[in-house]
Structure formats: C-alpha cells, structure tokens
C-alpha cells in the first residue's frame, strides 16, 4: 500500500498539473488499476469541479479612481520635467539646509503658538486630559490639547483635514465621551454625547469623504454604541447619517450608516425613515437596500406608523420582477411586520 499512499498524496498536485510528467503518468496508471485510489481520485475531481463555482468578483470602479487620485497626488498637474541643467550640488545642499531650518523653526513656532492661555472666552486645557481615560498620543511637533465640547465654534470653518480619529467611551465614573484627532495639533474634544459641539465634530467626521482611514467607520460604530440609549437623538446626527447614506460612494459606509440609523431610537424617526426610504428607492447596491428594509421593519416593530407611500414602496419592491430576489423577500417579510 505504500504506493497508494504516495499516489493519494500526489493527487492535489495531479489536479494542479504540477507533477512531473513521468510521475503523473505513473499515478494515472496506478489509479486505473486500484479501485480504492480511483474512488479517492473521483472525490478529488468532484472537489476540484465544485471549486470552480467560486467566481471572480468585479473590482469596484471607485478603487481605480482612488488609486489614480493617489498617483495624481504624487505628480502635481502641470509639472513639467525640466530639460535639466543639473543644479550645482552646493546650491542643492544650501536649499535643503534652508528648507530644514524653515521646517524646524516653523514647527517650533507652531508648537509654542498653541500654548498661551487665551485672555478670555474658551479655555484650552493643555494635557493631561480631563476625561479620566483619555491618554495622550505623542505628537512631536505641536502640543496636544483637550478642548471642552462647549468651546467648539458653531461653525467648523473651511474643510480642515482631520486624521487618526479615535473615540473614547466614558469609563463609568464620568458621563463624558471624547473624540480625539490630529489636525495641526493633537486635539481631544470632550463632552456629554448630547452636547452640540461634540455632535458637530462627530457629524463632520461622518461626512468626511476620506475612505483611506477607518475614521468614518469608527464614527458610525461610536454612534451605534453611544446614542442607542438616547431618548431623543440629535437631529444633526440623524441628518449627517442620512447624508452618508445618500452621498457616500462606498457601499460599506452606506451599510454602516443604515445600521447606525437603525440603532437610533425613534425620537427622530421621521428623518431616519425618509433617509431609509430614499435608500430603498435609489441605492444601487442590493445589500444597502436589504439593510434599509431591515431598519424600516425595525422602526415598524417599535411602533412607528408608516405612511401609505412607504407601504406602497415596500409592496412595489416585493413584487418588482427586476429587483434582486433577496430584496423582494425582505420587502415581503417587512410588510408582514407592519401594522396595516
């Protein structure tokens, strides 16, 4: 039987056609003459055929756009490669040294510029943080600062680039939560979840179109965790989630927006409902439409009464021949849960 063992061991390679020709021939001869190995070989072949059913998934077109955006950022538009009279080494060295002086000097200045306490008005706290579990991240150039949500300006001016957003839950001794991020310095905004300033920063993070980080995804998880117990969720937050659901190009983000909307209690149900209805009508991705139906059904279960247009839309989806089968089934199930 050692030959049987050797042949069976070689069967995957035989399938992959990666066996040397003489060994391949010998294995096939053995299989033809050995009933046990022939049975094994048949099973291998069945497995092999079954594996064919796994088809390639298409690459999302936005991925190409995202990559080409990156390439464009590496090669500024209009840049012309000079016909090159190489700059003398000394001049290049001087230029590099000057750049270094400006960078270090600028950083030092920027770092110290944020320290002085304001004369009046909003008060900045230099770390350590006031929320018990906030730990500062080393930020080498500018100072870290902790700002109370009540001090956030009503309008976030311009479109500041904020990165590395992290969310800190209350630790049980305080009701405050915190949102930490890097801007020109490391900033931590603390406050109660219902404070306007905090909601404003959160809404800003939610509507940021940057998909290269997990900030937005984490923001939606934070909304689910933090606001599911609220009796009347902030309408700004619902609006921000509705905007993500309507405008975000990434279906993963839109699915998370539906989940976050679903977790928000029915205090702002009508705004949430319109966003979900809109997604069910117009979202190109069936997974998002299924989630939207789920969330609508959930609203119905919590006692929310639906207008006739919503019910009609669900009916239409359940019976629409060119709609995705799973969406149709979900719509039919949801209709069963609504008090008509």
């Amino acid at each position, binding site marked *: 039987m050692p030959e049987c063992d050797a042949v069976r*061991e070689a*069967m*995957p*390679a035989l*399938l*992959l056609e*990666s066996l040397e020709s003489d060994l391949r021939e010998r294995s096939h001869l053995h299989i033809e003459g050995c009933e046990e190995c022939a049975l094994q070989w048949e*099973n*291998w072949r*069945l*497995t092999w055929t*079954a*594996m064919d*059913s*796994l*088809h*390639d*998934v*298409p*690459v*999302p077109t936005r*991925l*190409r756009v*995202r*990559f*080409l955006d*990156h*390439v464009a950022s*590496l*090669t500024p538009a209009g840049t012309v490669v000079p016909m090159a009279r190489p700059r003398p080494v000394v001049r290049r060295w001087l230029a590099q040294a000057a750049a270094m002086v400006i960078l270090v000097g600028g950083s030092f200045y920027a770092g110290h510029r944020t320290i002085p306490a304001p004369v009046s008005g909003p008060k900045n706290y230099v770390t350590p943080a006031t929320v018990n579990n906030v730990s500062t991240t080393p930020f080498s150039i500018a100072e870290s600062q902790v700002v109370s949500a009540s001090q956030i300006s009503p309008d976030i001016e311009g479109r500041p680039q904020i990165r590395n957003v992290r969310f800190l839950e209350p630790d049980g001794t305080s009701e405050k939560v915190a949102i930490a991020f890097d801007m020109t310095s490391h900033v931590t905004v603390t406050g109660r979840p219902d404070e306007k300033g905090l909601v404003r920063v959160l809404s800003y993070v939610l509507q940021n179109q940057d998909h*290269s980080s997990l900030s937005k*995804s984490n923001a939606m998880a934070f909304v689910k965790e933090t606001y599911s117990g609220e009796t009347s969720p902030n309408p700004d937050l619902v609006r921000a989630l509705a905007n993500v659901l309507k405008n975000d190009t*990434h*279906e*993963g983000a839109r699915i998370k927006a539906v989940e976050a909307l679903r977790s928000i209690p029915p205090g702002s149900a009508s705004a949430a409902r319109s966003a979900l209805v809109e997604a069910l009508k117009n979202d190109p991705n*069936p*997974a998002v439409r*299924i989630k939207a139906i789920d969330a609508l059904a959930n609203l119905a279960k919590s006692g929310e009464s639906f207008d006739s247009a919503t019910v009609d839309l669900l009916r239409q989806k359940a019976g629409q021949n*060119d*709609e*995705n*089968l*799973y969406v149709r089934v979900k719509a039919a199930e949801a209709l069963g849960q609504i008090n008509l």
Partner: protein
Amino acid sequence: MKGLSDQELMKLVQSGDFSPAAEVFDRYSARIYNFAYRFLRNAEAAEDATQEVFVKMLKYATQFHGDAKLSTWLFSIAANHCRDYLRKAENRNRESDETLIHLPTSSELAPDRDLERKEDELRVQKALTVLTPEQREAILLSRYQGLSYAEIAQIAGCSEGAVKTRVFRAMETLKKALTEPASGGNECLNVMP
C-alpha cells in the same frame, strides 16, 4: 503602454515616471482584489489591501528586480498585507462580524440553476473559511491564481515542501466539506485539519 511588458513598465516607474501606473493597475488589480477578497472575506478590507499593494508598488518600485515576475512581487505585497490584517485582533473581530456574502444582482439571479450555482459558491466560500490562513493563502494562489509552488513559496517565505503540505491539507479539508452529503458536510466543516 499596452504594448509594453511588465518589466518595461516597471522600469519607467523606477525612473520616477508614474504614467504606467494605470496600466499596471488594470493588468493586476482584478487578481489582487479577488485574492484579498477571498483571503480576508471582507470587501472593504480587500479594497484597502488592493490600494495598499499598488501604492507600495510605486513607493518601493526600486526594490523590484526585473528577473522576478511582477505578479509574484505584487502578490507578495498583498499576502503580507493580508497576513498583517488578520493578525490584528481588532480586525479579527471585524472579520467574524462582517463576513461578506456576495449578493448577486438581479440580472445574475434567474432560474433554479443560478440559485444552485449560488449555493455551490456559498459552500465553497464557507469551506474556505475553515482553512488556516496559511492553507487559504496557498490554495487561493495555486488554485485560483495559477501560481506555481515555487512562486507561492517565495511569497509565503517558506519551502516548496511546506507549500505542498499546505495545499494538500487544504484540499483534504475542502474535499471533506464539499463532497460529503449536506448534513455530514456541515459537520465536516468543523473539523480542523
């Protein structure tokens, strides 16, 4: 650009000319994305992995040697990224929470045969999740990307013998999961090699 070989495109990139980036992306993004998608079982993570691979291709272009195949080099970057992703505990949780089931569009779904095909595909997808990451990597690269054991060994940083063992074990597990009757098959899905 279309007429240029991989090596010629990479030479341009190495000289600081990024104009072939789109062409390289078009040649390999589908393979890289599908590999990452099956390996990580998460569409969003697969997108990030694919982006990362091509960004690194530009960043570290000088490390690419013309004697190697570009596909092997790109798969090495992809596999490293995917392994790192799976290693992180936070992402492991996400993997289990957000296991992706690819939903077909309505045009893909027609009669019973398509539904059967869909079921088969789900069975294979499910069976692949039972494999260890090393086995999954090896089977995805050999069975679905057509790479040789030698190339996979280079990507995985192990010997060809180790690749053979991984593929064999993976196939055994898949055989159990896919060829035994449905009820028994489900039980078999829990058997780790």
